[in-house]
């Protein structure tokens, strides 16, 4: 399989970005140092090229009703201009993908999906489309996407656009950059304040170049992974996959059972979690995906789904999937790192508190 390149590929190479294959794309994993890129986002402002992600548009009278039927979260009752995070589930409750639904205006919805799941999601949605009076279009190939993240994101972006109100977190606004339309959402995957900016390739390339002129730190996928893990956001393929349901990944809050009907409701209404997703901090050792999690009797009770060295805490942190009925009552967790047990503290709160509004 040949890997795909975003329209900013040459920019990344010019900046010295290290390119790695990711979800079928050649993407920059880091430019200078993961640490510096993480700190830029937490303390200042950084920008990610996330053009590999997918964009679908749903337009027509039934746009909201159709999307509401597809996903577990409540789309119909959310106000226009709002962004809503949701799993997309099968009838048996397993997760096809996690995505963000943007209510642009009555009868027009944008859905942003994970790069690795574009075809899977689109085919699934298409198969459920019959009977709804709306179009469903995969626009992934005509849109580029940047994520501008960090406490200085708003003051960086505002002067560049024709208009940008101090919008709410998780809302969306249509505006323009140098006369070209862009869709700006106050969303991101870092826990910090920030914006995701959708536009056509040429527009987004000019915007990226503008950010570089302004000395915004270009950030790669490695920093993005540390940032999302520090604030405990799930990543499809790690915390979420085709086998688990939203409850197994701590996403019960996104399953709105009072909704009249949605795909997966009948199963999810009676289902309980088989797994529990826990947050673990280690004083010593760095947990990695796939490492076993043990109880005080050294029995395996689960597995690390994502692990890294937190740049902010300077400690190993992990999300781990624990079998629900084996969750230890004494809260003693050990992570098996290369056949050696390292003690891990359970924490209820995210490892790092992001500064988003």
């Amino acid at each position: 399989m040949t890997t795909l390149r975003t329209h900013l590929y040459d920019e990344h190479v010019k900046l010295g970005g290290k390119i790695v294959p990711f979800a079928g794309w050649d993407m920059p994993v880091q430019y200078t140092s993961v640490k510096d890129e993480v700190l830029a986002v937490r303390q200042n402002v950084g920008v990610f090229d996330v053009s590999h992600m997918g964009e679908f548009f749903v337009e027509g009278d039934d746009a909201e009703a159709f999307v509401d039927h597809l996903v577990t979260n409540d789309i119909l009752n959310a106000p226009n201009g709002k962004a809503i995070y949701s799993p997309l589930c099968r009838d048996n409750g397993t997760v096809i993908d996690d995505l963000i639904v943007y209510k642009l205006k009555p009868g027009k919805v944008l859905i942003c999906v994970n790069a690795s799941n574009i075809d899977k999601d689109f085919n699934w949605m298409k198969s459920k489309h019959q009977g709804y009076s709306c179009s469903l279009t995969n626009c992934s190939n005509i849109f580029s996407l940047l994520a501008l993240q960090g406490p200085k994101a708003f003051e960086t972006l505002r002067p560049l656009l024709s208009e940008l109100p101090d919008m709410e977190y998780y809302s969306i606004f249509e505006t323009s950059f140098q006369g070209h339309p862009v869709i700006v959402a106050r969303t991101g995957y870092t826990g910090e304040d920030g914006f995701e900016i959708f536009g056509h390739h040429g527009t987004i390339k000019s915007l990226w170049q503008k950010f570089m002129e302004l000395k915004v730190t270009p950030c790669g996928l490695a920093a993005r992974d540390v940032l999302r893990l520090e604030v405990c956001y799930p990543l499809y393929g790690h915390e979420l996959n085709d086998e688990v349901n939203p409850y197994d990944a701590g996403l019960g809050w996104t399953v709105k059972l009072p909704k009249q009907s949605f795909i997966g409701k009948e199963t999810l209404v009676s289902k309980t979690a088989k797994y529990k997703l826990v947050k673990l901090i280690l004083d010593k050792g760095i947990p990695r995906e796939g490492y076993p999690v043990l109880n005080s009797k050294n029995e395996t009770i689960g597995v690390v789904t994502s692990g890294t060295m937190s740049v902010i805490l300077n400690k190993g942190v992990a999300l781990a999937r624990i079998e629900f009925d084996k969750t230890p009552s004494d809260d003693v967790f050990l992570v098996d790192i290369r056949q050696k047990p390292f003690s891990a503290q359970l924490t209820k709160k995210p490892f790092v508190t992001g500064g988003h509004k």
Partner: protein
Amino acid sequence: MTTKIPTNLKYTKEHEWALVEENTVTVGITDFAQSALGDIVFLEVPEVGTNLKAGSTFGVVESIKSVSDLYSPVTGEVVGRNSDLEGSPEKINEDAYGSWLIKVKVKDTSELNNLLTAEQYQEFCNTSH
């Protein structure tokens, strides 16, 4: 990618360098390796007295994003470990050739002929990446 490859050292295909002084070999990871790894945050090397076998793993080096095994260039006994790196493994990023990991006393110095010269290692880096 440009990388520093001192000519006075020997190299492995796993990107370790070896400084040979009589029958003692000082081992570290190359500039190419530290650059590929990124920010190094953890290092695990064997105790003095451990016996190593050429080509087998002797420890790990971890960056924020990945874990890599370390491979011994030679067979022998660990006679020293760099205590300067304990607590500050990021020094490897700053100076890969100035940051040695372990010293190994070798019995059979003929084994050193299996290692790559600087020229061969440069060639290896050029073709494998």
